[in-house]
């Protein structure tokens, strides 16, 4: 299973962190501190798999962001790369040519998309079309509920 997902900027800022295994806030910070130097500046020619504690870290750079997925030793590393890519494609589709700024200002959207794709540490939906549909649908309900609030206010 996936234990956590981190999106880290080139300067070491966390852009997204999702945890599927229980860690206290302190532990989370320690992990992020450990992972950052492992992935930032890693030569892109090297393999994308790193040993991390008793896990494997699958890390890859997409434009200015490093994506890091922590998985079990017996998980399929190659498949995790595809899961990662799948998420990048979803972000790309949602934000239309996603860039780091999109994720900085709309990090909550990035979380919502991730929630539709991964839960409990497993990929739960494998159709990009479906996920986009769900997310669009939820955005719509959200808009409606906002209108509702505004209407109430009036």
């Amino acid at each position, binding site marked *: 299973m996936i234990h956590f997902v981190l999106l880290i900027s080139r300067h070491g800022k966390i852009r997204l962190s999702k945890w599927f295994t229980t860690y206290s806030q302190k532990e989370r910070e320690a992990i992020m501190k450990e992972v950052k130097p492992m992935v930032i500046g890693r030569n892109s020619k090297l393999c994308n798999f790193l040993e991390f504690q008793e896990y494997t870290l699958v890390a890859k750079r997409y434009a200015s962001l490093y994506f890091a997925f922590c998985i079990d030793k017996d998980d399929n590393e190659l498949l995790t790369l595809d899961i990662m890519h799948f998420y990048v494609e979803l972000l790309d589709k949602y934000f239309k040519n996603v860039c780091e700024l999109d994720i900085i200002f709309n990090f*909550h959207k990035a979380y919502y998309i991730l929630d539709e794709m991964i839960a409990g540490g497993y990929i*739960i939906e*494998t159709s990009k079309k479906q996920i986009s549909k769900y997310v669009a649908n939820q955005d719509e309900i959200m808009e409606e509920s906002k209108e509702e609030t505004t209407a109430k206010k009036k």
Partner: protein
Amino acid sequence: MQAPKKEQPTRLRDLIKAVRACKTAAEERAVVAQESAEIRESFRDETYRFRHRSVAKLLFIQMMGYPTNFGQVECLKLIASSNYTEKRVGYLGLTQLLNEKDDVLMMVTNSMQIDMNSSNTQIIGMALTALANIATAEMCRDLSKDVCKLMSHNNSYIRKRATIAGARIVRKCPDLIEDFQGEVPKVLEDRSHVVVMNGVNLLLEIIKIQPNIKQAFVQYSGLVVRAMRNLIHTVHSPEHTIGGVTDPFLQVSLIKLMSKIAGAEPSEEMTDCLAQVATNTEPAKNAGNAVLYECVRTIMDISSTSGLRVLATNIMGRFLLNRDNNLRYVALNSLLKLVKVDLLAVQRHKTTIIDCLKDADIAIRKKALELTYCLINESNVKQIVKEMIDFLIAAEPEFKEALVTKLCLAIELHSPTKQWHFDSVLRVLTLAGSYVPEEVVASTAHIISSTPELQSYAVHKLFNALVDNTEQQGLVLLALWSIGEFGNFLVSETLKTSDGELKAMTPNEIIQGVEKTMTPIAADICKEYALTALIKLSVRIPQAVQSIRRLIEQQISALNVELQQRACEYIQLLGSNWDSIRGPLLEKMPIYAKAPAVDIPTTDSSSPVLEKPKTPTQPNSAQNLLDIETLIFDSQPIQQSQIQQSTEVPQPQFESLLDLFSSTPQPSFPAPVLNPVTGDISEPDKFEDFVEITPIKHNFIAFEDEEINVDFNCTKPEPDALENTQISVIVSNKCSKDIVGFKLSAAVLKHLEFSFSSAASTSMMPGGSIQMQMKMKNKAQGQKPIAIRMKIDYTIDSVPRSKLSTVDSFPPNY
């Protein structure tokens, strides 16, 4: 004074902008502190309309690493709201700001339960996701029933989420597995393949927690194989196709599940299916390779047919040759698993694996090293070790340590000859002596001390290496030790070797060599070794005593107590009142017990030869002499033949005995000898101080059991040629039956030459005996003892007997 209440709080976007505009960390802290204060203030108002906005801002603040605990309860309030936006932000806040360890979390259980029973699928979905991501064991227990129910919901969106929430529940509360076990078959047969995938993952989770439950699911292997078949035969499903592969995610889960539920013997259809996947999956893209990789892992896990296994190994072979580092990495990883079950299959990829040792990627190099190490055996050790040493030159420190450890272990376990062993260790020491574990230095010292023919060569080689390089600690220690022990060879012998001549050294050169290691910055341990080497050299090279004294004196004022003590004691020992015992005291170190190998050997190659005795050679045939050599010089205890000293006590040569006692009275027990490795004083071998005593006659029983008796009566026929020994071998029949077809074969070490006349008869009556004459020439008489490996074959009542024995009870100077 209270700040005027703002009508509209800062929007999330504006906060992010404000933070990004900060030029210093202090500025950022100020902005965050102010915002946090405002948010906290705003939470006090129970009717606050922008609560969700505040929580969203808190998420951002948390991401920057600031404390946000005060927002936790607000998430619960938002979740309880009927407004969708608030609920959505609330659930997001819940999974981000809280974790299982926060007590507040359990307060959400009730809201979640209500949401799970909502008519809105989106809301049910949110509650299930939150449960799947952060629920505590207690929450899992409380909500388990609801989740189970939702696994049969009519909407697949809910079913898939309920299924994966089930995975969290069984993980947290293994006792609830039973509740979900019953639901699994249903979801495995679900019409939505996304639900199937989640079902497979749930089942994998269950099996992981309770491996013995596997058996209950073996019956579903047919179902799983069918699902897999459908998947690989579906042609057009662009929605789920990645890199030309239909839903690799589901494929991988299914293949993984196959390995768990294959049972003792995988069904034919499963084998076929795996073969099909292994053959037909498109390897052009990562997705295809991910499926192939999983397939290979499953094939290796289950008891596959050899054909399937070959297929799997070949796929890994292809991966190994691929330019993609990721593929090479996973290939090495899986071959590491395979090597334990099928060494031969992996051996085929030896060259490619060794090549990976020079990969630019350290992760790959490390895996390759582990694997290479597994592949080493007696037949390829020379080649592989040579290549590993080549890589050692270029390796960075981080990798060197791992490489050196494995390298030394490989040399120790598989070395074909002592000479090669020494040469290889010397190369490693020269290149990376500081990384060499201490045990390796000790075990190499043991080899040198137990192999007399190697000593001169070793000390020359080590001395030359030391002169070139005093940086590598391991090398320095070993060199100093051997210079101390065998320094006499350095002055007296010029050696011709295949790669040139090793010149004899002048005493001065030797002392200078030792001095080089005693610089003020040298490690104390090196100086300790150097001191012991020097004091030993004082008897080996008496001409250099003055320089030796000077060097030892320098250390009298050493700050290290051990060094100082050694220096003081050694200076004392150099005094003339100790002249008489200095010699025996500084004798060569007795052969000490060998240090065990650094690691537990993976093969039985290090076990003593005696455990699987090889047929001894016919006399005069030299083909098996090496075996004998390892046998006799192996430090492992040798099973000794029954040896009895004959009643005729060896006659000592009185002249030499008198000689020995002519000076100051000596204790009759052997003088203790300084052990430079441990610094201890140890008892030398019993024979050590009888060196000059040559018994003219020596009779003993070389072999005895309940059936036969072999006596050796040895004499030195020519007083001028003491290397020759005449042995009369008397074999007698002790049992009450006839012995026929008696044959005695023997083999000896290289420094011995022997011939013997065959017996007049090959049969013995009860009580009868036969006699044979053996002539032995010991070319290293006085230095190396005689040892004979005997094989005795005979037949009693047409039952053949075969006995093996090592005869090594000859006097040491024979």
